[in-house]
């Protein structure tokens, strides 16, 4: 992680703004994510976290500012543009079909066939490989989603997001609806994603989870940047202060390494 400051970020937002009618949802926001890094996007309700990821996922294209992906300027106008770049988002509702099994959900919309009929054997084989690589444990890949636990469902949704050559995965509140054990399961999966060299953006309200899994925390306050912190050497109190705006104005004193990187990569 520490060397990431010298590398090109996989995703970089420069001065992104977004307005909905009279509401300035984002103003001049900078943000970056690196491969092999988990970055937390944190902020109070209405701080603009969801709007920011929707700009990246192509649901609400940004009004102003630049999006750079792997060192290239890109224009993300719709979800397909994002998917073509290798950006996948897992929303809170997971978008799984409860009545279909794990394999069918992993391949939803991308089914493989051998001539006309579905090629269940190939799909099941690859599904098992993907889940094994990510250390996701599920009783059987032929179980329907309805009989899985919340953590297992989240794991299936995340696995689906990363199994199609994704480079950046955005997770919206991945542990919000989960119990302690299941949260642990999902956080472990996020660590596995980092190990495999993916860039992961985690949106969460749960600071304990953030501190367990995240390398860097980027804070939004009322649609503006309010500091980037390295989790090592930052206390939860500092983060809470930045989220609530209590420290507004001197937030750049959050932590030394984070400030350096901030100065180095954004202008």
């Amino acid at each position, binding site marked *: 992680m520490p060397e990431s400051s010298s590398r090109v970020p996989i995703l970089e937002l420069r001065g992104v703004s977004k307005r909905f009618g009279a509401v300035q949802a984002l103003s001049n926001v900078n943000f970056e994510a690196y491969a092999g890094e988990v970055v937390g996007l944190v902020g109070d309700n209405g701080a603009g976290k969801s709007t920011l990821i929707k700009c990246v996922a192509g649901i609400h294209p940004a009004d102003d500012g630049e999006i750079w992906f792997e060192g290239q300027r890109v224009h993300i106008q719709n*979800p*397909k543009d994002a998917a073509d770049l290798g950006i996948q988002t897992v929303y809170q*509702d*997971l*978008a*799984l*079909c*409860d*009545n*279909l099994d794990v394999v*069918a959900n992993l391949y*939803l*919309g*991308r*089914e493989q*066939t051998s001539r*006309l*009929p*579905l090629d*269940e*054997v*190939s799909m*099941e*084989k690859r599904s*098992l490989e993907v889940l094994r690589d990510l*250390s*996701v*444990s*599920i*009783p*059987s890949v032929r179980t329907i989603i*309805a*009989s*899985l*636990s919340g*953590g*297992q469902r989240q794991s299936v949704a995340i696995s689906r997001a990363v199994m199609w050559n994704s480079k950046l995965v955005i997770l919206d509140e991945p542990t919000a609806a989960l119990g302690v*054990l*299941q949260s*642990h*399961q999902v956080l*472990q*999966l996020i660590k596995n994603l980092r190990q495999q060299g993916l860039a992961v953006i985690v949106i969460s309200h749960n600071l304990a989870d953030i501190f367990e899994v995240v390398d860097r925390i980027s804070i939004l306050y009322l649609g503006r940047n309010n500091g980037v912190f390295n989790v090592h050497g930052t206390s939860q109190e500092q983060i809470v202060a930045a989220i609530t705006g209590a420290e507004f104005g001197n937030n750049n004193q959050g932590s030394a390494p984070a400030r350096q990187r901030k100065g180095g990569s954004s202008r």
Partner: protein
Amino acid sequence: MSTMVNDPRLESERSGNPLQRWFQRFRQSDLGPLPIVFGLLIIWLIFQRTNDKFLSPLNLTNLMAQIAALGTIAVGAVLILLLGEVDLSAGSVSGLCAAVMAVLNVKYGIPGPIAVLAGLFTGLAIGLFQGFWVTRFKIPSFIVTLAGLIGWVGALLYVLGETGTVNLRDKFIVGLASTFLKRDVPNGELYSWLVGILFIIIYAASFIWERQRRKRAGLQFRSIGGLLFQIAVVVILVVGMLLITNADRGLPSAMVFFIAVLVIFDFLTQRTIFGRHVYAVGGNAEAARRASINVPFVRIAVFGLASTLAAFGGILAASRLLAVNQSSGGSDLLLNVIASAVIGGTSLFGGRGTVWSALLGALVIGSISNGMDLLALPSPIKFMITGGVLLVAVTIEAISRQRRESAGR
């Protein structure tokens, strides 16, 4: 990562002897079609005890000829229910399309096969129209097809004109449903056995081949015992059906069409991308949309297919009754169609069920109707008992759904 290993529910499922595991499955009510098969056997035993002609080859062959049209329309209803929609127009559409065929053939002298095709295309066009209306204007299918239910009856009366009844004489059209393979076709009995054996061989080969492929790919594969048991069940069903019908007039042609429809649509729904997408749309349309599935296309196509099947069922019914009249496709047909699909185990809430539920449901409804006719019971009793069976069947479905959901947590 492996929290579920500590979950006692899963451990109890894995451990224990087969009987305990079966009991576990029973408690979670993942029984598939077993309750309704059991119910059907009970219905048959009751009727057999009250009238020993019920399980005779003559009557069972009649039963097959009677349920084919109902079952064919019910396959369409299953497709619609898989989407989580409902089609109230199936009955009227079947009547209208049969009338179109009959009028073209009898009044305008158009050859039978072309008249039949015209009837089928009428159904397809109606279905696509209704499906388009449901998806384009986002009106519940219940309302759109309710309008269809009323409107297509009007169209039926209009097409039939003043006479009100059109009698069918065309050999092709009459032969569709009124042919018995042994009685009416030279060597028909032999052909029925050849096709039956071919069916069994293809069925068994496809499962054995799949097992080999899974084995080679290093996936879990089924035990030889379970596979042989499944194949044995199919052999008994096919051979039993052929022995019984060939002890009488032979297999009714309407049943041949119905079975063909079942096999084709089973393949379509279980083995193709389109079928997978039908289940996905019925399970979670928003998830399907985000997975870049063309949800409006799937919806409109299914409505089109369902109404085409309704048309085919109506044509089979007309062929069997040798006429189309003002009550064709009316009366209790629609209710029996939806009841068949639901009794057979298709969920009203979308995404669960198979086309075989049309066969099971039609057998139950048809058996009750047939058995009561043998007993000369009046139709009030018939309706009440059919209603009771429907209620019991959906209750079983609802309880099993609740248990499945509570077992999921």
